[in-house]
């Protein structure tokens, strides 16, 4: 039971990181990315292959950097495209990553996967319980990323991203380089997805291609929609509630004997799809909508200065 709760907690942390990244790209910058899983997989594989040689911290940094670089590359090629086209290009990217991982066995060990990925603070974990240490590590990682992204959302960079999302033409007319800003937003999102992949690899200590399906992307979208596009706090609430609900249904397997495991997983994924559609229709602003900042909040207070 405890082991199970630990697993859920870690999965929530991974989902929260992926969701935070998508919330930057889609929620704040308005760029749809259906290839989320590809970036997570790249981060996980970079970590898995590098951590035994370089240690976990450099491996995690490089995982983020590789993911960010590929993200920036894809953005440079395709970010000018209209939404429909950007969507299919990112889906295609995700599929290409999947095929490459499956077929480039010399690097990724193909369908066999990569085992024996070292965990951070493994020595400390042996003294006071591996799970406790790892949960603390995962929570700290989410907290750091959250603080950084929240600071970014409040910075001029975050402000101009939201402006681009709401009206790219006006923003461009005001002298902002819309293209470069979009590429940067995509790259930062990619870095966070790569980091999420690293956390995933550290926790499981074994990764293979079957762990990286388009479902990861669907979870992220669900979390962003549920939380409220653009709101990082909402995203955390969204990610937690979704993962708790979904993972909770795994318990059902022990009580419900009418349906088998495949049916249960189909039910779970179908519910994700239905949830996305229903939330879009019924509650488009999400559970914790992005706070609307009025112009007056940004200007110096007239009465105080007078």
């Amino acid at each position: 039971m405890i082991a199970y709760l630990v697993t859920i907690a870690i999965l929530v942390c991974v989902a929260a990181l992926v969701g935070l990244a998508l919330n930057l790209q889609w929620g704040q910058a308005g760029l749809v990315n259906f290839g989320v899983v590809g970036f997570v997989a790249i981060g996980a594989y970079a970590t898995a292959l590098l951590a035994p040689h370089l240690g976990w911290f450099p491996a995690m940094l490089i995982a983020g950097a590789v993911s960010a670089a590929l993200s920036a590359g894809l953005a440079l090629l395709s970010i000018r495209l209209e939404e429909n086209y950007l969507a299919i290009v990112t889906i295609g990217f995700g599929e290409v990553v999947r095929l490459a991982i499956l077929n480039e066995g010399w690097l990724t060990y193909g369908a066999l996967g990569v085992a024996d990925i070292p965990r951070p603070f493994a020595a400390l974990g042996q003294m006071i319980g591996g799970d406790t240490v790892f949960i603390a590590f995962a929570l700290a990682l989410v907290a750091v990323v959250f603080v950084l992204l929240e600071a970014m959302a409040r910075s001029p960079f975050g402000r101009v991203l939201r402006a681009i999302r709401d009206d790219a033409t006006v923003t461009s007319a005001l002298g902002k380089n819309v293209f470069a800003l979009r590429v940067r937003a995509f790259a930062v999102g990619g870095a966070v997805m790569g980091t999420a992949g690293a956390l995933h690899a550290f926790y499981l200590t074994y990764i293979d291609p079957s762990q990286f399906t388009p479902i990861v992307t669907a979870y992220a979208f669900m979390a962003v929609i549920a939380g409220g596009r653009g709101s990082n706090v909402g995203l955390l609430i969204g990610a937690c509630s979704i993962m708790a609900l979904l993972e909770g249904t795994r318990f059902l397997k022990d009580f419900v004997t009418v349906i088998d495991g495949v049916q249960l997983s189909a039910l779970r994924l179908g519910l994700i799809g239905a949830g996305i559609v229903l939330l879009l229709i019924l509650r488009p602003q999400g559970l914790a909508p992005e706070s609307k900042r009025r112009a007056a909040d940004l200007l110096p207070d007239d009465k105080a200065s007078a």
Partner: protein
Amino acid sequence: MAAQLFFNGLVTGLLLALPALALTLVFGVLKFANFAVGAMLTLGAYAAWVVNVQLGLPLTAAAAIAAVTVAGAGLLTDQLVFERLRLRGSITLLVASMGVSLVIENVCRFFFGNASRGFDVALSRPIRWEGIRINQEQITIAITVVVCLVAVDVLLRFTPLGRAMRAVADNASLAAVRGVERRTIARLTWVLGGALLGLAGVLAGLDRSIDPLIGWNYQIAIFAAAILGGLGSPIGAVLGALTIGVAEEMSALIIPTNYRQVVSFAVILALLLFRANGLLGAKAARK
């Protein structure tokens, strides 16, 4: 070898032509790319499988029921989902269609599991002609698709409904002024697109085994075909499908067959970069 691959490519292309046409027709009238095309194709394949294998009816009857089922599913999703979100911008519609795709795919998985299924059709010896091996299934696919394409062409060109569809696709407000109801046309477009996807599912089930991911495996190629032809252009979608089909099969000569799908992706990317409006030209793809 090359001739055989070229022939196989043409048949694959014809198979892609129906879903690509469905994608492009719906895009023309509703102005959003329906990411549930793959899942709807899967639904068609399973509907036909139930009728053909479980009820024991011939495949032609199964195909008809598959077409009706998917047309119904298209109408239903339009009514329940897409119409309600119509004014909320294309990104919302895109994401919603991904949600619909997940629902349909997993309804199929729930009832039929992950096992591979096949239609109950008699195996027959392939025909040899000029050194090319031609399967019965390939002949069935080619004939069905050509008949469908001619029917759609006649419908679009010579009937009042086809004229109305083209008018709405071209300029919805102007069509409305002339008394063409967008809502009715949208519904009929879903029926037509759904029927094409249902038939495509049956043909795909003849070509390979049926599993919940059968449609997803075609997804990128379908989009590549429709984009190649310029989203919204029916003739373009068919030509694009043939090109993608041949390109994918012929790619076996130079790259490992595992990477076939990469060809479609590369075509999309190259096309969007260098000729953003598709081969026949359509709506601008860049913002």
